[in-house]
């Protein structure tokens, strides 16, 4: 009897410990904030982590954990200058950052609100830049790093598919203007300097309308 009670208590403590280090602490921060300065993430990024496309608040659900973690670090230290995120990230402890990014990385990708796909010249420009690049300007295709259909690759290359067009466009402009310089090997800063405003508008519209999950490959 006694030993059973101890075992149960131990199990509870262990469980609580692992849950705290893991997603439930993150879920709480996402819903309620951390009680000492960080607002609830949900307020801008949506209840399901899908973001608010029109306002340019990005989807976080299903993004690479290491990528999200680095962004929090960079908002706090200013290499990614952002007036909204800097105080939030700065108010999170390291453990809270870990917890909240684990939570978002494991959230299922919500079905995005349908986005009107670009047409005509905009579509052609967006698709060409996304899938072929423009090597005459030294520009590789976006998908050479962000993966087929822009679904994201590994820890460092976040998905672009079904991301808010406003958000993508803001990010590209921030790189171009130097407000954002937290990219590995300066890849995006360099790429963004070769993009015109029309290019940025076309790519953003193109990716916003792409499906978030990998297109099914025909088995050949």
């Amino acid at each position, binding site marked *: 009897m006694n030993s059973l009670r101890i075992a149960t208590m131990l199990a509870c403590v262990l469980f609580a410990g692992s849950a705290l280090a893991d997603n439930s602490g993150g879920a709480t921060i996402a819903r309620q904030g951390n009680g000492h300065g960080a607002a609830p993430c949900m307020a801008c990024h949506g209840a399901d982590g899908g973001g608010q496309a029109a306002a340019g608040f990005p989807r976080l659900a299903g993004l690479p*954990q290491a990528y999200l*973690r680095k962004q929090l*670090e960079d908002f706090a230290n200013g290499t990614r200058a952002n007036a909204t995120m800097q105080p939030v990230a700065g108010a999170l402890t390291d453990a809270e950052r*870990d917890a909240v990014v684990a939570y978002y990385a494991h959230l299922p990708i919500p079905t995005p609100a349908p986005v009107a796909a670009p047409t005509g010249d905009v579509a052609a420009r967006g698709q060409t830049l996304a899938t072929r690049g423009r*090597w005459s300007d030294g520009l590789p295709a976006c998908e050479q790093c962000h*993966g087929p259909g822009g679904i994201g690759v590994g*820890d460092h290359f976040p998905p672009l598919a079904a991301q808010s067009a406003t958000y993508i466009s803001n990010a590209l402009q921030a790189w171009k203007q130097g407000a954002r310089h937290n*990219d590995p*090997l*300066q890849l995006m800063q360099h790429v963004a300097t070769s993009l015109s405003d029309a290019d940025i508008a076309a790519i953003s519209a193109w990716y916003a309308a792409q499906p978030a999950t990998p297109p099914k490959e025909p088995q050949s």
Partner: protein
Amino acid sequence: MKSKRLMLALSALLLAACDHPAPQAAAPTATPPAPAASTAKSAAQFQPPADSSIPNDDFGKQIALGREIFIDPGRYAKAYVGNQLSCENCHLDAGRLAHSAPLWGAYPMYPAYRSKNHKVNTFAERLQGCFNYSMNGKAPPLGDPVLVALESYAYWMSRNAPIGTSLPGRGYPKLAKPAQAPDYARGETVYKRDCALCHGDNGQGQQAAGRTVFPPLWGAQSFNWGAGMEQVNNAAGFIKANMPLSRGNTLTDQDAWDVAYFMDAHERPQDPRYSGSIPATRTSFHDTPDSLYGATVNGHLLGQGTNQP
């Protein structure tokens, strides 16, 4: 500052201990751009025709098919491919980009005598070599639809290029010998700083949705010991002009040689011409200081292959 760094280090340790990826370690810091070598496209650079000008007829169909094969041979020439690479991985922009051995630089230069096999090679035979070695597969027979389509694509791209004239931008740049002999340890440092982000810590590359995004640089899924990229001089020239992707010509020549040496000092699939003995195979096919086949680097005898079908 100091305590912050300590905390970062500690948290990284803790994270690692919990088997979470440590974010600090994840992203290499940016490197200052090296003094740019002049890559300015000379006005005289050959301009291949736009894809949109592929004719809309039966010949055009073969040209377009050749382009598809070049971009995705694992799909369109599956029977002849034995790894996760595509032609485009080493010949950028679907074989159009100067200094990455473009097809318009190659096509007008064949037939040509090649010391690799001691005979005159037609363009189709040159293509066969790519399948045997770079693709670690097997050569399509002469006249095979795959070779016909690839040759059609190369021919179309070379329109208006002079025959038998080596155009600027052909092949990979030939770098001058480096000040210091290429070195494994220095190459490893460059690799971790500038390459692992994409090609992975073990050169294994990265895939997404079952497709190769970042090609493997060594190991069972990369080019084999008979491929041109196995030679350190070829690899150094390619890397200098084209890597890290989109940041070509930012590495110093020394860095390019060192990292090429590092890459080529790893095991990969056996040379299909392997005669049963590494030293004999070296003497027959790798008798150049630019090949590490049969050399011992870090206590490992190179040329053993990866034991992969």
